[in-house]
C-alpha cells in the first residue's frame, strides 16, 4: 500500500514551456513549437502520405496529398505547412482524409501514362505505393492523355514529362540546395511541365539528386536506364569512396554486380545527397581483371598460384626479412586494414601514400558538404595510422628496401624508384602489370563492396561500410589477410572479426577512444581529435 500523495504535488507535471502537446491518430506527441504536423506525426510513428514535402527542401504545400483532418478546423489542413498547436487532435487515416487522398491520387493518375511495365521507377514509386494503399481500383478517365516527348536535361538526367506530378522538388532542390537555378515550372494548368532555359543544363556536380528526389519516374538516371528492376536489387549500407567527405550511400547489386549507388541520409555528413562522382563511379567495383588467387614467385621467376597457407607464410617471411620495410598503402583501405598494416610496418618501417586530388564542388545549400579535393575515402584514417602523405611516395624507397604495395594505384607514380626495391609484396585487389615480373608474393583481397570495415572522413567521423557482394575467386577480406600475415610475422594474433580489429585499433589509438564497432551504427561517430589534420579540408 502506497502512502497518499502529498496534497501539494500536482496530478501531472505541466509540460515545459518550450514544447507543444497534441494528439495524432490517438497517439500523444510532444514537439517543439513551429514543428509541422507532418514532422510531428513521424514522432508518433505515423507517416502522412506526401509528395512535394521533403525535409531538405523549403515547404511548397502544392501536392495536397498530406491533407489531414484537424478537429475544429473548417477545412482539411496540409500537414507539411501547418504548425502544431497545443491540444490539436489530428486524424490522418479517417474517412475524410482518406477520401481526399483518394481524390489527389485519381487526379495525378488521369494524365499519367500506363508506363509501369517500362518505367524504371516501378517497385520504388511513391505513386504506385500510395495508389495501391489508398487509391481507386479503376480509372474513370475517358479523355485523351496529355503528351510531351522525353527531354535530355543534361548530366545524367532524363525528364519524362508525361509522368511528372509537378511536385517541384527538383526545382526547389536546384534553386535552394544546389543554388544553380536551372529548372523551372513552365506554362500553366495541366499544360505545365518542368522546363529549363536553353543552354543551361543539369551539369552541376550535385544535380543527379533530383533523380532520387523525384517520387515518380519523371526524372531518371541515364546511367541506370532500363538496367534493372528495383525489386531485383539487393541493398547494403556503405560509404562512398569517391572523396574524403564520406557520404553515406547504399550499394545496390543484382546477381553480384553493383548496378547503382544511392545516397543514405545522414544529417551529420551528407544530409540526403550524393554527388555525381560518387553516384556514377562504381563500375570499378565490378572490374574483372582482379587478383583472384594467391601467387608466389616460382623457380622460373614467374608468379605461380599457391595455396593460402603457403602464400601467407611466404609473404610473412619476405616481409620479416626486410632490411627496411616501406608500406605503400592506399587511402581507400579501411581503418582496420591500415591498422594491421601499421603492425606489419613496425617501428622501423615507413608508411606512405598518395591521394588523387581534384577541384572541390560544394553543395552550397547544405552545411559542410562538398565533393572534396581528396578523391579517396580514408586519407584521414591513413594519417591516423601513421602513414604519411607524399606526392611521390616511392621517393621514400631506399636501395634494398622491401616494398609492400597494399592496393595502392601506381598511376602517376615515378616507377623508376621501383628499381631500388629489393623485394616487392602485393596485397590488394589487382596485380599491377609493372609488378608482375618483380613481385615475390601477391595476396588477393576484397574491394570496398566485398568486405566490411570503417573509414574516417575529413572531419574525423568514423563510419562503417557493409559487404554488398561476394568477392571473385579466392580473394579474402583485407583485414583478414593482413591479420594472418601479421600473426605469421609474430606481430599479434590474427583477429576473428572486423569488430575485434576495431577494438584493438581503438585500444592503441587514443583518438578512437571510447568508440566501439557496434556503437558506430550505420551513421558513424566522430573521433575525439576531430580537428582535421593539417588545417582546413
Amino acid at each position, binding site marked *: 500500500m502506497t502512502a497518499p500523495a502529498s496534497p501539494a504535488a500536482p496530478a501531472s507535471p505541466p509540460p515545459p514551456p518550450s514544447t507543444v502537446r497534441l494528439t495524432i491518430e490517438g497517439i500523444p506527441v510532444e514537439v517543439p513549437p513551429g514543428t509541422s504536423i507532418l514532422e510531428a506525426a513521424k514522432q508518433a510513428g505515423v507517416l502522412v502520405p506526401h509528395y512535394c514535402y521533403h525535409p531538405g527542401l523549403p515547404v511548397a504545400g502544392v501536392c495536397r496529398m498530406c491533407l489531414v483532418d484537424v478537429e475544429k478546423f473548417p477545412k482539411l489542413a496540409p500537414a507539411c505547412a501547418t504548425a502544431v498547436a497545443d491540444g490539436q487532435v489530428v486524424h490522418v487515416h479517417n474517412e475524410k482524409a482518406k477520401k481526399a487522398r483518394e481524390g489527389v491520387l485519381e487526379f495525378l493518375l488521369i494524365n499519367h501514362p500506363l508506363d509501369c511495365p517500362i518505367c524504371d521507377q516501378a517497385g520504388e514509386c511513391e505513386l504506385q505505393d500510395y495508389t495501391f494503399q489508398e487509391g481507386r481500383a479503376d480509372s474513370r478517365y475517358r479523355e485523351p492523355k496529355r503528351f510531351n516527348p522525353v527531354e535530355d536535361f543534361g548530366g545524367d538526367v532524363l525528364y519524362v514529362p508525361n509522368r511528372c506530378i509537378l511536385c517541384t522538388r527538383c526545382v526547389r532542390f536546384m534553386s535552394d540546395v544546389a543554388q544553380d537555378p536551372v*529548372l523551372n515550372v513552365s506554362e500553366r494548368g495541366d499544360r505545365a511541365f518542368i522546363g529549363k532555359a536553353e543552354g543551361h543544363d543539369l551539369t552541376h556536380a550535385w544535380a543527379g539528386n533530383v533523380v532520387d528526389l523525384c517520387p515518380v519516374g519523371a526524372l531518371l538516371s541515364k546511367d541506370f536506364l532500363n538496367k534493372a528492376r528495383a525489386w531485383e536489387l539487393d541493398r547494403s549500407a556503405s560509404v562512398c569512396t569517391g572523396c574524403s567527405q564520406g557520404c553515406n550511400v547504399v550499394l545496390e547489386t543484382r546477381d553480384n554486380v553493383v548496378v547503382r549507388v544511392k545516397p543514405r541520409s545522414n544529417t551529420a555528413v551528407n544530409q540526403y545527397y550524393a554527388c555525381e562522382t560518387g553516384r556514377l563511379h562504381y563500375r570499378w567495383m565490378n572490374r574483372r581483371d582482379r587478383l583472384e588467387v594467391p601467387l608466389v614467385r616460382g623457380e622460373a621467376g614467374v608468379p605461380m598460384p599457391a595455396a593460402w597457407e603457403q602464400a601467407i607464410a611466404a609473404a610473412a617471411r619476405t616481409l620479416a626479412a626486410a632490411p627496411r620495410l616501406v608500406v605503400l598503402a592506399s587511402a581507400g583501405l579501411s581503418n582496420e586494414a591500415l591498422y594491421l598494416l601499421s603492425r606489419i610496418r613496425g617501428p622501423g618501417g615507413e608508411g606512405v601514400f598518395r591521394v588523387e586530388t581534384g577541384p572541390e564542388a560544394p553543395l552550397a545549400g547544405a552545411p559542410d558538404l562538398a565533393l572534396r579535393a581528396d578523391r579517396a575515402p580514408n586519407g584521414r584514417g591513413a594519417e591516423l595510422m601513421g602513414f604519411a602523405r607524399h606526392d611521390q611516395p616511392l621517393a621514400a624507397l631506399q636501395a634494398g628496401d622491401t616494398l609492400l604495395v597494399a592496393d595502392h594505384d601506381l598511376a602517376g607514380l615515378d616507377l623508376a624508384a621501383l628499381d631500388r626495391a629489393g623485394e616487392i609484396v602485393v596485397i590488394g585487389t589487382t596485380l599491377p602489370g609493372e609488378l608482375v615480373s618483380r613481385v615475390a608474393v601477391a595476396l588477393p583481397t576484397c574491394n570496398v563492396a566485398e568486405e566490411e570495415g570503417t573509414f574516417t572522413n575529413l572531419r574525423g567521423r568514423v563510419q562503417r561500410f557493409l559487404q554488398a557482394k561476394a568477392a571473385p575467386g579466392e580473394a579474402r577480406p583485407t583485414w583478414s589477410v593482413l591479420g594472418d600475415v601479421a600473426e605469421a610475422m609474430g606481430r599479434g594474433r590474427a583477429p576473428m572479426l572486423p569488430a575485434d580489429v576495431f577494438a584493438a585499433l581503438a585500444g592503441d589509438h587514443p583518438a578512437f577512444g571510447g568508440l566501439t564497432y557496434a556503437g558506430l551504427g550505420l551513421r558513424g561517430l566522430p573521433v575525439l581529435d576531430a580537428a582535421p589534420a593539417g588545417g582546413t579540408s
Partner: protein
Amino acid sequence: MTYGPSAGAKLATTPAHGHDDAPYQPVFTGAARDELETLCARYPSRQAALLPALWMIQEARGWVSDGAVEEVAQVLGVSAAHVRGVLTFYTMYHQHPVGKHFIQVCTTTPCNLCGAEDVVNAFLRHTGCGELGVTSDDGRFTVIEVECLGACGFATPVMINSRFLESVTPDAVPDVLEECD
C-alpha cells in the same frame, strides 16, 4: 468605340516569317537601359522589374526570344530558367513571332452568350487565317481566342496588339481589318 495607343507607344513589330538566325542584338542599351533602371528603382528588388522588362522586350521586338531571355536574366540578376518560367506563365507575352496584327477575341461565357464565336469566325474568314493561332501567309494577322477581357458589357471586345476595341460584331469585322495596315 476604339481606344488607340497614346502617342509614343509602338505597335508590336515582327520579322516577316519564322525565327531570325542573326545574332541577338541587346535591347537594354542607351535610353532603354536607362528606362529599365528607372523602373528597377521603384522596387526593393530588381527581380520585380521582370514583368515590365519583358514588356519592353516585346514592345521593341514583337516577341521574347531565347536571346532576350538571357539578356533580361543577366540585366536583372535572375536565372534564365526563372525568366522562362515567368514568360511561359503569362499569356500576353509571345514566345514566338506572331502576325503584325495580333487579334485576340474574348469568347468566355458572357461574351459567348452574345455571339463571340461568330466574331471569331468572321475574323478567321476575313483575315484568311483559317485557323486559330496560325499567322496569315502575308504575315499580317494572327487570330486567337482569349479569356475574359473585362469588358463583358461591351460584347464582343477584341484586342489588336494593345488596341482595345469594344462591341465588335461580325458585320463590323471587315471595317476593323481595313484600319489595320
